[in-house]
């Protein structure tokens, strides 16, 4: 082969590698950027006066006097809208019967939408649901609500072969010539003064309990539940896994039973996670009865079984990678096999073992299927350590799944969903980062 051809080949080969890596980085960015952008909106957003009022009334946070003044100022602007409605209701009494029924229905819609934006009208009874007791807490949602307030969505069925095309009809058209007509323009122009949005950094999103099916508050129970599940899982899986790996690498030798066990471990690593979930339900809860029903403990046990094959495999590799000379040196100094493993082999294999443990932690943190039947519930309070033995918990992966499949009004709380996704991604990222740093540190210490 000529030199120039070989050079060209070499260059195109390395170019291919660089291209593949760039492609992966690009894909990662495309994946992570929207998660970061949307997830951050759970923490940083324009909060309305309703948000501040909620915080003050439900958790006693904020400057009482300042918020009171704000509420009064907002009420001043809002009163004009309520006055218009009251005047229109009087007018309605004078109208004809059929016309009255039609208008009354439209008016109810107007009032409902306005309540959705500004909270219950003054003088009305306090609604039962927490979400009806307050108006929009977020300015971005308020703008969506304003659209619903200003426009009725109708459907154009003129093309029978296709689906109906949505048409936006201004709601004000139904009230032309009445005293309610100016209300729409007034709300549109003064919504900002009624809600007083202000850029807010709601870091407590992480540490607040969710209220009223995640309409308000944060995700602390789910974060705490994920931490419990992850740490608990590793507390079970790491000792068992490392002990198994030590046995397989150092003591087991060869034999049909050992190779059968190895095959089983390999197979176990490929079993779908939902199977582990059902196994956990059938074995830990129904057969062993570790708890009456779902509990963090049962979830940890199930997740531990799920990650064990990974921990065993990787730890065994790490142990086998320890130079034989260390073992020889230790034995030649009169150390028994036990102290050789404890004092020489395990310390030298520690970086690899820790990496496997922390990567498994990431896996345990993100798994959904195994905890569906064994540990997770969609709503709950933060648990104490003792309660984890018997109580189920919310957990980030399950809550994300639950929000997007089963929540009654997920459209209104997408920010919570994305906030959870971002938190989970960051959590796993942090764990992996910790693994890399720890590994580098230990490797440096071992290398001298």
């Amino acid at each position, binding site marked *: 082969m000529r030199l120039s051809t070989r050079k060209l080949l070499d260059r195109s080969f390395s170019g291919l590698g660089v291209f593949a890596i760039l492609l992966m980085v690009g894909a990662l960015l495309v994946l992570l950027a929207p998660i970061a952008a949307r997830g951050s909106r759970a923490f940083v957003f324009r909060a309305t006066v309703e948000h501040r009022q909620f915080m003050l009334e439900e958790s006693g946070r904020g400057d009482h006097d300042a918020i009171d003044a704000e509420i009064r100022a907002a009420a001043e602007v809002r009163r004009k809208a309520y006055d218009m409605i009251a005047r229109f209701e009087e007018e309605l009494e004078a109208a004809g019967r059929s016309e009255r029924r039609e208008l009354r229905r439209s008016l109810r819609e107007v009032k409902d939408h306005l309540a959705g934006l500004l909270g219950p009208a003054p003088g009305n009874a306090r609604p039962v649901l927490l979400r009806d007791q307050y108006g929009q807490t977020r300015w971005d949602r308020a703008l969506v609500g304003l659209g619903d307030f200003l426009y009725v969505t109708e459907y154009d069925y003129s093309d029978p072969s296709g689906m109906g095309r949505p048409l936006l009809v201004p709601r004000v058209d139904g009230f032309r010539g009445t005293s309610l007509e100016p209300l729409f323009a007034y709300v549109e122009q003064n919504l900002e003064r009624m809600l007083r949005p202000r850029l807010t950094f709601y870091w407590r999103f992480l540490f607040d309990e969710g209220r009223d099916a995640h309409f308000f508050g944060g995700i602390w129970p789910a974060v705490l539940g994920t931490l419990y599940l992850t740490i608990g899982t590793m507390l079970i899986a790491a000792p068992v896994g490392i002990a198994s790996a030590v046995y397989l690498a150092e003591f087991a030798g060869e034999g049909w039973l050992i190779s059968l066990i190895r095959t089983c471990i390999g197979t176990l690593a490929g079993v779908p996670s939902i199977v582990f979930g059902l196994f956990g339900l059938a074995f830990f809860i129904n057969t062993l009865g570790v708890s009456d029903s779902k509990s963090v403990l049962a979830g940890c046990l199930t997740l531990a079984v799920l990650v064990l094959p990974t921990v065993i495999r990787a730890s065994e590799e790490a142990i086998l990678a320890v130079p034989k*000379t260390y*073992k*020889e040196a230790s*034995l*030649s*100094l*009169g*150390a028994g096999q036990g102290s050789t493993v404890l004092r020489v082999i395990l310390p030298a294999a520690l970086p690899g073992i820790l990496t496997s443990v922390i990567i498994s932690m990431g896996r345990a943190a993100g798994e959904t299927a195994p905890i569906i039947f064994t540990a997770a519930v969609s709503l709950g309070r933060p648990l104490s350590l003792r309660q984890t033995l018997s109580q189920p918990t919310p957990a980030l992966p399950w809550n994300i799944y639950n929000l997007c499949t089963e929540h009654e009004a997920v459209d209104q709380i997408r920010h919570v969903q994305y906030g959870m996704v971002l938190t989970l991604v960051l959590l796993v990222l942090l764990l992996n980062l910790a693994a890399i740093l720890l590994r580098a540190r230990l490797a440096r210490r071992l290398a*001298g």
Partner: protein
Amino acid sequence: MNGVTVELASSLAERQGPAPEPKDRLEEPVITAEEFSVFYGDNEAVKRVSLDVPPRRVTAIIGPSGCGKSTFLRAVNRMNDLIPGCRTEGLLALEGQDLNAPGVDVVTLRRVVGMVFQKPNPFPKSVFDNVAFGPRIHGVRGKPELTETVEVSLRRAGLWEEVADRLSHNAMALSGGQQQRLCIARALAVDPEILLMDEPASALDPRSTARIEDLIGELRADYTIVIVTHNMQQAARVSDLTAFLYEGRLVEFGPTDQLFTKPRQKQTEDYITGRFG
């Protein structure tokens, strides 16, 4: 006599210190092999070797690669136990005790028989922890006691001056020759009677090799040393007795100067003059 033998003879003359004349048959041998064989599976690596290693002498085992010299050495502290399918026949005794008898405690045996390996193999720990490893394993806990043992061992291994201010540094940061002397210090720290050395200088540069050889000369007064080496000049320089193994058999065993200058066997002469091997 050809050139190589002349060179060997002159290096014998340069050897440091007076060569103690082996007072054969007067001292009880420390290691006794009688018709001793080692098998790897069906392959007989050491074939019916009989020899006596006297106390406080340096005994070198030389021979071409694969002649079974390392296998024989590793049989003395039973490191061959690590190799699956390895078994022995005949007698290998330490002070009259059969090493391969069922009741022998390998851990105790290895306390008495220290070993230094071909490649320096310090643990990835600090210099101090490396030397203190053995004493700690054997139950020494007191800090002052450990510190003393470490210093004494390092001094004996001639490494103290170089590492005294670096005891807490990682041993992997030392040079190859220093690492090997650290390994010797580590072996000395358990206070053995016998020191096995498996080509201790073959991975080192000439200067470090010289230091190790000097060290062996110093240690001869207190320890029984058995050294396996590829390097015939080295055997001539450091040892009192030399055994020549070829294809698992002991060809010749005797005082080093005699073996190198007036070999009794034709094979020995061929080997030390470089006709094969």
